[in-house]
């Protein structure tokens, strides 16, 4: 049976280039893009060695194309020199997706940041990949439209990065993740040719290539133009803050609300420590003594929204909410959200390092999983904070620590392993929105069988038969043979 299967190149490795090879590579990139847009100063390369995750690698060169043709030229140049390449947006990824492994050419999209076209009637926009998520929403706000996927990093992350990671956010509970908002993507394929996946028509003949590309973490080429859906601003919008003296009660409220037939626009939870921390940062009026708070948003037409508020109030109170506060105005609402969206960043006030997991569990199992997470952290003597998309069961246990403490990394990893094992054991998945990248690929085998990984490797090969695009990402090494997984050579954690 295996004889008919093409060789998998997804885990192909590339040898380090010699200095002379590097010089020629950079010179050629300079010819393709202009000398100041292809760079290789060691200090500059060091700044592109990682994203917002933990692992750090090394780039051969970094370049800044401004057009699709320039991206294609960069890809072709890299290939001609036998070097892999890697697309990079804002570098806010949390899984090491943009960490360069095997000395690739890093192709940065930050200078491709124009909103090219906005169609108000048909509610879509064509944008370049470097447009920042929040900038897009701001650019269309005066038209009564917005871009729905709103990762907490939305002020900084790029649409291209969002597409590559299928980014989610609080409001994806009702509106779906990036996948549901990408109509088409112009892509420079790993062979350097340009195509458009998907389109403005509802269906495409053949397989849904667009759907496969979204979430492929840069392993299937580089998006150079993206058509995204825009959503009309809802006529009514209310944000509620529920405050609990008990984490279990908050978690029970989450499944209670959904079971009651309501899908809020967003349903977020923060535990005691994180609530206090963000309150210190934004002063939004979060109760500093709460064991947990829920931030709930409902939107739509007025009567439906009013009904929804009543449901939330009823379910919350029945589960022991201490207070249910409805934000009075836009200022109060924005402050509450600013608090929620600052949460990850704010943790450095507790300790200088963090490791973030991103598992999803069935929401009816939230209570027990949360208890388990706290117990695991206790056992490993690591502090854990929980701030997460409770509505879709997407946990974000943040393990915070000071890396200078000897032996702490082992305990952090042990806690992470245990949390993942627990999440999968209740029927959950490894990653809800941050992706697998480099850092979580070791865990892929706990969710997928060798056969599962085999077809995924085949999907990657279909786009990138020679393995040039962002090597060593997503799939564990040797996706068919089940060998022991480790970080590829040359990567520092």
């Amino acid at each position, binding site marked *: 049976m295996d004889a008919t299967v093409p060789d998998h190149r997804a885990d192909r490795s590339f040898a*380090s280039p010699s200095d002379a090879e590097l010089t020629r590579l950079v010179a050629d990139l300079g010819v393709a893009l202009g000398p100041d847009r292809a760079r290789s*100063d*060691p*200090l*500059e*390369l*060091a*700044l*592109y*060695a*990682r*994203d*917002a995750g933990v692992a*750090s690698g*090394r780039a051969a060169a970094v370049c*800044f194309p401004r057009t699709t043709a320039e991206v294609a030229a960069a890809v072709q140049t890299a290939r001609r020199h036998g070097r892999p390449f890697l697309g990079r947006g*804002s*570098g*806010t990824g949390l899984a090491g997706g943009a960490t360069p492994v*095997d*000395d690739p050419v890093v192709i*940065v999209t*930050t*200078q491709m*940041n124009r909103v090219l076209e906005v169609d108000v009637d048909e509610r879509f926009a064509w944008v370049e990949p*470097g447009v*920042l998520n*929040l*900038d897009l929403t*701001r650019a269309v*706000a005066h038209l009564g439209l917005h871009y729905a996927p709103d990762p907490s*990093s939305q*002020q*900084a*992350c790029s649409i291209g990065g969002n597409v590559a990671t299928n980014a989610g956010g609080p409001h994806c509970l009702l509106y779906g993740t990036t996948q549901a908002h990408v109509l088409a993507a112009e892509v420079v394929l790993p062979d350097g040719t340009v195509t458009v996946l998907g389109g403005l028509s509802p269906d495409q003949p053949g397989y849904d290539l667009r759907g496969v590309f979204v979430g492929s973490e840069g392993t299937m080429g580089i998006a150079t133009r993206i058509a995204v859906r825009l959503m009309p601003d809802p006529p009514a919008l209310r944000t509620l803050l529920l405050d609990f003296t008990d984490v279990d009660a908050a978690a029970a409220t989450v499944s209670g609300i959904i079971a009651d037939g309501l899908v809020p626009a967003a349903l977020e939870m923060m535990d005691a420590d994180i609530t206090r921390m*963000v309150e210190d*940062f934004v002063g939004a009026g979060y109760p500093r003594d709460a064991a947990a708070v829920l931030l709930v948003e409902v939107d739509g037409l007025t009567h439906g929204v009013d009904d929804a508020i009543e449901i939330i109030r009823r379910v919350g109170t029945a589960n022991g909410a201490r207070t249910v506060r409805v934000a009075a105005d836009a200022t109060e609402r924005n402050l509450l959200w600013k608090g929620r969206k*600052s*949460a*990850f*960043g*704010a*943790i*450095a*006030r507790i300790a*200088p*390092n*963090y490791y973030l997991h991103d598992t999803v569990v069935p929401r009816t199992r939230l209570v027990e999983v949360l208890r388990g997470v706290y117990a695991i952290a206790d056992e490993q003597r690591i502090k854990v904070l929980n701030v997460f998309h409770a509505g879709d069961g997407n946990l974000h246990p943040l393990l915070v620590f000071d*890396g*200078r*403490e*000897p032996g*702490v*990394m082992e305990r952090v990893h042990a806690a992470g392993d245990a949390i993942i094992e627990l999440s999968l054991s209740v029927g959950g998945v490894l990653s809800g929105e941050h992706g697998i990248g480099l850092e979580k690929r070791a865990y892929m085998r706990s969710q997928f069988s060798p056969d599962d990984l085999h077809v995924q490797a085949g999907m990657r090969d279909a786009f990138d038969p020679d393995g040039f695009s962002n090597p060593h990402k997503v799939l564990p090494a040797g996706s068919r043979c089940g060998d022991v997984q480790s970080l590829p*050579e*040359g990567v*520092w954690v």
Partner: protein
Amino acid sequence: MTALDSVPTTQRPMGVAPQGPLDISDDDLVSCVACGLCLPHCPTYRVTGLETSSPRGRIAAMRAVQFGGAPIDTVFERYMEECIQCRGCEAACPSQVPYGRLIEGARQALHERRSHDRRRRRRLAEWLGYTVILPRHRLVIAATWLLGLGQRLRLVPRRLVPRGVALPLVSLTELRHPLQPTAPTAPSGASSGGPSTGNPTNAFDAVLFTGCVMDAWQRGTHRSAITVMESTGAMVGLPGPGGDCCGALHVHAGRTAEARRLAERVIASMPGDAPIVVDSAGCGAALKDYGHLLGSPEARAFSERVHDFAEWLAPRVDRLAVRDTHERVVVADPCHLRHVQRQTTPVRSILAASHRTVDTDDDGLCCGAGGAYNALQPDLALAARERKIAALQRAAGGAALTDFRVVSANPGCLMHLMAAGVRAVHPADLLAEALDPEHPRWPRDAIRPEPSRHPGSTP
């Protein structure tokens, strides 16, 4: 095996506590988690898209030097010098990374290194500027007067000034008329009174810090500020000798020792406990930072007394008799007010009765002025300004630049914007225009004691 030995690491090696060449705290340096949330708030990143001109990149470069053995070379120097020090990143950072401290530390290291190998002419020019002229009030005035004269006589060659860079159009008349503090009057006195001299004492309700460049270039604004303050019934004093230069530019340039000396002089020039009002956001930020710069209890007490003009005026605004001009003005918060002093509401509330203020949608992104920055890094400064102007026009509903005014409380920003044709104006000037001349000024009586910033404390 891939050799990584030659690659500077941007990360702190785990389990080691190294001591690097930059005079900055390791704890400060490691507090950045590289989340990137600051990126969009950085004007230089916004216009270049380069990690090297972003706060996260600059911090990573500092780490590479501090922990990874990377050299302090011209590349590193360029990354540091391209920073406007607007501290938009610091305000945006949820981890509260003290970026201001970091960049000042890095600049200081660069300054020390530069003292050895900078080209002599540049060093001479810097010395002339920072050490000779700025701290000497009369010299700034004289230099300005020469500049103004030169401009009129077309003696300042265009090519010496990078295109579009701000140069003040100095009013020579203004310079001939020194500022006057409020004359001492009878307790119920409501007249403007004649000039009086001498050190500020507790007889004054507030002291207006005049600074060096501001006083030379925008003395009219000081006049407006005094008029407006007096209209609330306050007696306004001026600093005594030595209160010339706040030292902000010196801090930014890494000339910390000189900055400390200037700070001590400024403190000495304004004894007593009257609030110190500053109508230049940059100077205000510097004065508020003396506590940290000098680290002494006196300096901390002094910094406590410092208020931005709008911050001082806001709780007293009801005493102002202004006309409603119905004019729409776009607010361009100076970085030193928004990101450093974190004062954004006061300027909007003091203008509420007389003007319709409109905000930009760019989270107060820096306009690129940055003290001396626009002269030192003209390309980035101009690109940042272009972005700012687009935001201002969006806020004004797409109006032409000539059709609306922009309000900003920092002389650097005002000049930088005006040089591009923006009708930029200081809030004190706007208010002075809108004062109702018919209406009597608020009686002084009513404002002593000074409204307290800490409710409950007795004067």
